[in-house]
């Protein structure tokens, strides 16, 4: 525990390099090669200026949205590599050590969860919200464009800390939830848990600001006539999700902040001695953690609602019930956090209350599933890839929902707690529920963002690989859980488990094929983009406002802001033959200028995190100074907008 801490480099020394395992070392090399390769390609193409002015300093919500999604897809690959490595280890390690040292295996399951939740799902969701919501509500931008860029850069800084933990030092071995006392400094010294804490704390600040930004955007920047009950479902779910972010993320900040204080300053929030109370961590963490599940899944529900209506060529069935179900889920999400630790030893009555509350959430969720089914009923269904993912979701999600209701019963929970049954359950919710939703959204809105389709054949292939791969990978885990297999086993001695674990590994291989198909789809689509071009701006016969504009939309979004008179107003106007009215526009519009504040804040946030992880305090202070300086500097910038003239012969509907 007495480590050497130097003034210049903190506790950073040569032993931080990943020579402890050849697998970790190759991972570090791949990460480095990826980073250096990216820089080299940009330099070779001479695109630094274009990258800087067009993307990195951009405050255009559409550009920021795309950067978020690129980040998410990169992290999806990294998180998946972790997953398949775990599956391979468990397929091999019956009565043997497998190929991974125990400590490295623990890092892998910790980083897999952390990456998938914080740096894959969150950026994917935020990216889609960013790109689509202003277009759906008829706004020219989000309420706070520069704040939006800051949010993105803080998220990127957190992801950067996450990635660099593979090269310099080690990552946490305490799982993605970081429970004390194990995650305390007494049992887990070193930098791993600190990397975990600071990467999610830095990105969490960005997420909180995203929540604020989108609540204001949705409530204040809607086009005239876009009443709340005329908003598209994706916007509604984005609103509920943003409200949850505002109220839930402080709990994550508090929980991880206190853990950091325990670890760094020797405090006693969650320690075993000196008046610490580790149960308090579980409460704080899951007061954030359970709403987080809904923060992720509600927007996916919104995407499914858009997709199912569009591809069934029907109006969404039961729109008001979907809105109310969303709102009810959002409220109930704050009342169930204790079901994550029924076994903690609260009284039977407390457990019963939280068990019932958990089961109650299944009701509004069930309402939604029926609404989607009835939307499809007697519709003219087109089986494009987004619709395939939606149908796959409906089939699989119901299974996960039922296993969730089982887990909500405290006595059953006692026997399945910490088993792979739980792992199967929550993957059953987040892969079909969250990831399929985002992939459906990615394929649905891609033509809007880039002006050409994604190849549907490779999209369908990716779907089938994901679907079958998912079933093979996770259904065995349900069985294994019921057979009593604990989660996070690096090695085991029960011969009965191995065949099922091999099946699960095969499932992971099929999912790998699904990811490969996604990559090929992107590549093929870019290659044949001329043939796949969308010239109409409305390739799917869409219903909502984003389809009323050209693909890709101009920087200022709407040449003329439309006046909304009904739900699905664009669809009505299209079929009644009377174009939508629009607000008379002045000749020139104002769009925000680029700003370096975002990259500065991201750089500062990264330095704060890296400094705090390694006890390089001058670096942390310098990072803080850069971030605060950037904010103060921003307050002195006078000329934040430039004029554009929208009427360059662009079409208006």
């Amino acid at each position: 525990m007495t480590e050497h801490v130097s003034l210049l480099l903190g506790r950073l020394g040569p032993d931080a390099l990943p020579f402890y395992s050849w697998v970790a070392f190759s991972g570090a090399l791949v990460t480095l090669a990826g980073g250096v390769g990216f820089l080299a390609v940009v330099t070779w193409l001479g695109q630094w200026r274009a990258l800087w002015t067009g993307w990195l300093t951009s405050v255009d919500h559409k550009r920021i949205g795309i950067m978020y999604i690129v980040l998410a897809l990169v992290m999806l690959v990294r998180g998946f590599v972790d997953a398949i490595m775990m599956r391979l280890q468990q397929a091999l390690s019956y009565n043997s050590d497998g190929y991974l040292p125990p400590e490295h295996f623990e890092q892998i399951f910790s980083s897999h969860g952390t990456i998938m939740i914080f740096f894959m799902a969150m950026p994917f969701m935020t990216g889609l919200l960013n790109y689509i919501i202003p277009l759906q509500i008829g706004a020219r931008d989000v309420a706070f464009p520069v704040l939006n860029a800051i949010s993105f850069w803080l998220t990127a800084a957190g992801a950067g800390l996450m990635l660099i933990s593979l090269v310099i030092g080690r990552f946490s071995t305490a799982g993605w939830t970081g429970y004390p006392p194990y995650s305390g400094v007494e049992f887990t010294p070193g930098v791993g848990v600190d990397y975990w804490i600071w990467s999610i704390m830095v990105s969490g600040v960005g997420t909180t600001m995203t929540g604020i930004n989108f609540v204001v955007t949705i409530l204040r920047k809607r086009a005239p006539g876009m009443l709340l009950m005329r908003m598209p479902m994706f916007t509604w779910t984005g609103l509920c999700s943003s409200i949850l972010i505002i109220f839930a993320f402080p709990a994550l900040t508090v929980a991880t902040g206190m853990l950091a204080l325990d670890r760094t300053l020797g405090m006693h929030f969650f320690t075993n001695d000196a008046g610490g109370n580790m149960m308090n961590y579980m409460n704080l963490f899951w007061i954030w953690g359970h709403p987080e599940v809904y923060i992720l899944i509600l927007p996916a529900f919104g995407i499914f609602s858009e997709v199912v209506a569009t591809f069934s060529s029907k109006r969404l069935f039961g729109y008001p019930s979907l809105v109310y179900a969303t709102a009810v889920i959002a409220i109930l999400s704050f009342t169930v956090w204790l079901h994550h630790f029924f076994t903690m030893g609260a009284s039977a009555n407390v457990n019963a209350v939280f068990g019932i509350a958990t089961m109650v959430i299944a009701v509004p969720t069930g309402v939604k599933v029926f609404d989607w089914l009835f939307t499809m009923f007697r519709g003219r269904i087109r089986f494009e890839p987004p619709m395939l993912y939606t149908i796959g979701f409906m089939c699989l999600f119901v299974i996960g929902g039922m296993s969730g209701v089982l887990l909500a019963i405290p006595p059953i929970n006692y026997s399945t707690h910490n088993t792979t049954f739980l792992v199967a359950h929550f993957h059953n919710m987040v892969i079909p529920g969250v990831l399929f939703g985002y992939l459906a959204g990615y394929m649905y809105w891609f033509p809007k963002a880039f002006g050409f389709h994604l190849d549907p054949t490779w999209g369908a292939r990716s779907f089938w690989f994901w679907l079958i791969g998912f079933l093979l990978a996770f259904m065995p885990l349900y069985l294994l859980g019921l057979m009593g297999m604990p989660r996070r086993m690096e090695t085991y001695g029960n011969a009965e488990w191995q065949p099922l674990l091999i099946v699960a590994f095969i499932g992971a291989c099929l999912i790998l094929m699904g990811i490969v198909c996604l990559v090929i789809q992107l590549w093929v689509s870019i290659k044949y983009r001329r043939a796949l071009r969308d010239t109409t701006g409305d390739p799917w016969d869409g219903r909502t406002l984003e389809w009323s504009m050209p693909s890709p939309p101009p920087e200022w979004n709407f040449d003329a802001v439309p006046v909304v008179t009904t739900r699905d107003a664009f669809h009505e106007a299209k079929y009644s033959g009377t174009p939508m009215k629009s607000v008379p526009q002045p000749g020139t519009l104002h769009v925000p200028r680029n700003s370096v504040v975002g990259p500065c804040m991201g750089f500062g946030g990264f330095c704060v995190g890296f400094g705090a992880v390694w006890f390089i305090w001058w670096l942390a202070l310098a990072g803080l100074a850069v971030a605060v300086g950037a904010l103060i500097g921003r307050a002195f910038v006078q000329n934040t907008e430039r004029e554009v003239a929208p009427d360059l012969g662009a079409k208006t509907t």
Partner: protein
Amino acid sequence: MIAASDAVEEQIDSETEFGFWLYLMSDAVLFSLIFATFAVMSTNLAGGPGGADLFDIKNLAVQTGLLLISSLTIALAHHAAVGGHVARAAVWLVVTCILGAGFLVLEVRELTEFVVKGAGPDRSGYLSAFFTLVGTHGLHVTAGLIWALTLIVQTTLTQPGPRLLSRLSRLTLFWHFLDIVWIGVFSLVYLPEFL
């Protein structure tokens, strides 16, 4: 045209203000969770000193007095700025900063004293929660001071306008919010020890 741009400015203002209220709500959740943690840990002394052994009522009274008066002076600054008296507003802001800095000096002195006495945040769960709660409030006050200093510089350097006024009104809101949090600290952390 002027009327139209005023309307745009006003809309932006109302969005910023609404966003700031949302931020305050988020911050209120943050503080309430720290308060809740403090309440849970208030008896976890681990054989160390408790509040009754440590707190000095005089220091507390002066600290609270400084912060409450600063809430008045920042309101006066805002009032002056609304009336267009920029110089007067700047003076009241300077007074606010002095009072706020005084509060911080007393707070830092008190906390340092505790650490020297061996009652630092690593002594017990109770003291961890105490230092974190008071420290988080203190950090917010520090941020408010930096903000106020920035505004003072801006009132002297740049043309006063609606944006500056909007910033001042949000700072005022922030400052009052910190006052309310302090009243919570006063009544839940300090006061019970003197009763």
